[in-house]
């Protein structure tokens, strides 16, 4: 009798042992695949960055910053594209940042209860991920078509539209992190709302808001689609924002797809400059945000 019971017990133990083994094998397999997936992501990152670095470094040189984009088949630089991008980005920030900060302030300060704030937050989050090529179409219809020609201003407006939701979102989020007691203290001292916001909230939320702006600038510096049919391109050096304007993304696009080696090498150099700028800007923004989060 006893021996029979022992045998049954050991049989169950063996069965549960096999089950345990299977569960652990599944576990090991899943975690192994997860590690492989992460490795694949990291390989993609290194592969892309190495491609840009190797091809771009071979094409670097001072001529990039001193000469304008060349006609087909001859040598030149990227001066007009760099200047155009800097000018349009500056104008886009001047247009988009103040509106974005004001709208974000409204969202953070209206208590989040009114339906309009909820609607704006919803729409803003959609604008944040909306296809930027549609932004280009919109700006084409409201600026390029009525004015009859492509222009740097149209490009800057399209960039501002891409920047705006980033600034709204980060302003909203950082302002909501400012302690309530600070607001109450300022208002209790008799400060009007605008003084409270300008001289208490904004200084307290400065780092977060600046981070948002930097991330936004990083985002628009790489955007190509909204510029294709707003700013278009310009082969010559031009400071006239009312005319078509050269810019890095469109020049890279056109030169990369061209059959001329000199143009392709300029495209790689431009790609390296753009990637470095964008990644350093977003890493810098991250670095600024960290102490606040910790």
């Amino acid at each position, binding site marked *: 009798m006893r021996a029979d019971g022992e045998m049954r017990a050991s049989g169950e133990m063996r069965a549960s042992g096999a089950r345990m083994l299977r569960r652990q094998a*599944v*576990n090991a397999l*899943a*975690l192994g*695949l*997860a*590690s*492989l*997936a*992460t490795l694949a*992501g*990291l390989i993609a*990152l290194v592969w*892309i960055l190495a491609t840009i670095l190797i091809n771009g470094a071979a094409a670097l040189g001072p001529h990039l910053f001193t000469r304008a984009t060349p006609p087909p088949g001859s040598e030149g630089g990227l001066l007009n594209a760099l200047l155009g991008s800097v000018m349009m980005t500056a104008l886009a920030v001047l247009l988009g940042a103040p509106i974005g900060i*004001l*709208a974000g*302030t*409204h969202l953070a*300060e209206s*208590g989040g209860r009114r339906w*309009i*704030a909820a*609607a*704006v937050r919803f*729409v803003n*989050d*959609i*604008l944040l*991920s*909306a*296809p*930027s*090529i*549609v932004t280009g179409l*919109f700006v*084409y219809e409201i600026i390029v078509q009525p004015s009859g020609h492509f222009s740097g201003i149209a490009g800057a407006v399209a960039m501002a539209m891409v920047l705006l939701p980033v600034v*709204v979102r980060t302003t909203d989020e950082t302002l*909501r992190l400012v302690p309530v007691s600070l*607001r109450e203290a300022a*208002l209790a001292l008799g400060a*009007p*709302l605008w003084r409270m*916001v300008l001289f208490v909230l904004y200084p307290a939320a400065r780092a977060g808001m600046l981070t948002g702006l930097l991330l936004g600038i990083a985002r628009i*510096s*790489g*955007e*190509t*689609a909204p510029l*294709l*049919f707003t700013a*278009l391109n310009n082969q010559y050096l031009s400071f006239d924002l009312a005319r078509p304007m050269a810019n890095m*993304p469109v020049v*890279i*696009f056109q030169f*990369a*797809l061209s059959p001329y080696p000199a143009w392709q090498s300029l495209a790689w150099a431009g790609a390296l400059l*753009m990637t470095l700028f*964008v*990644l350093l800007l*977003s890493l810098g923004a991250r670095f600024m945000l960290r102490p606040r989060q910790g």
Partner: protein
Amino acid sequence: MSGMAISRAEIPVRRVGPWGDRLFRLLLAGAAILVLALLGGAALAIFWGALPAFRHFGPAFLTGSAWDPVRQEFGALVPIYGTLVTSAVAMATAVPISFGIALFLTEVAPAWLRAPIGAAIELLAGIPSIIYGMWGLFVFAPFMADHVEPALTALLGPLPVLGVLFDGPPLGIGMLTAGLILSIMVVPFISSVMRDVFLLVPLTLREAAVGLGATRWELVWRVVLPHTKSAVMGGIFLGLGRALGETMAVTFVLGNAHEFSPSLLMPSTSIAAAIANEFTEADSDLYRSSLIALGFLLFAITFVVLALAKLLLARLTAGETRR
């Protein structure tokens, strides 16, 4: 995560403010309403621009597969098909990989490794899409043509139904390559949402599962994932919204061919790529209007997908705060 309700003081709204405050409030509200107006205005303006094409072709615009600037015949079927297929390929690869990365970052990696690897994966989201395009065209497409596509054709080509998808010359450029590049681009978005919501799961739930003897995998598959499934779906829809509207990377590697073909290895076009390639060359009003009509379709599709994403993500956040 966004939307975390943080308690804040109600600004006394009824206070009889000085004129400065009234002006200030007006300014704030005006800016907020401008954000709303931009989306509404964009939808209206694009619809207005698309109207001539919609009027001229009627509902046949959606089902027509012709795209002939010479005969002025335009149908959206091929670009819509290309957009959907490339996005489907992208999601089919990006979702499991993103889940794997989130699993690695929350369960496998030692604590000191989590932040740097998470940051590296998120760096993928910072790389401009035109850079993906150049890498795709000059490096990844030749790699696909030389190594991956011949193997796929040999391996899967003879299969009865699936074979059609992998039949054809290994060109490198085509829907498969475009979809894979899209998947690299959306992985950081999906995986960071998954990681963030996995970390939101209450510690008591985790401890209960581990206390009952669950392995790491069982913990994630049976407890964490069911608990966060709506937000995980939200993250997936967010990635899908990005994939559908992504322009430059796809433009480089899709080949801009307005031809319908069942094989994933063949070139095609997508809505965004067709607009990017052809808009400045459109020489007639109907041609331009047809491209804007494509843009309107894209706008409508991505709006629905992104709105769904937002609602699914909001549901978890609401559930979390209630708990």
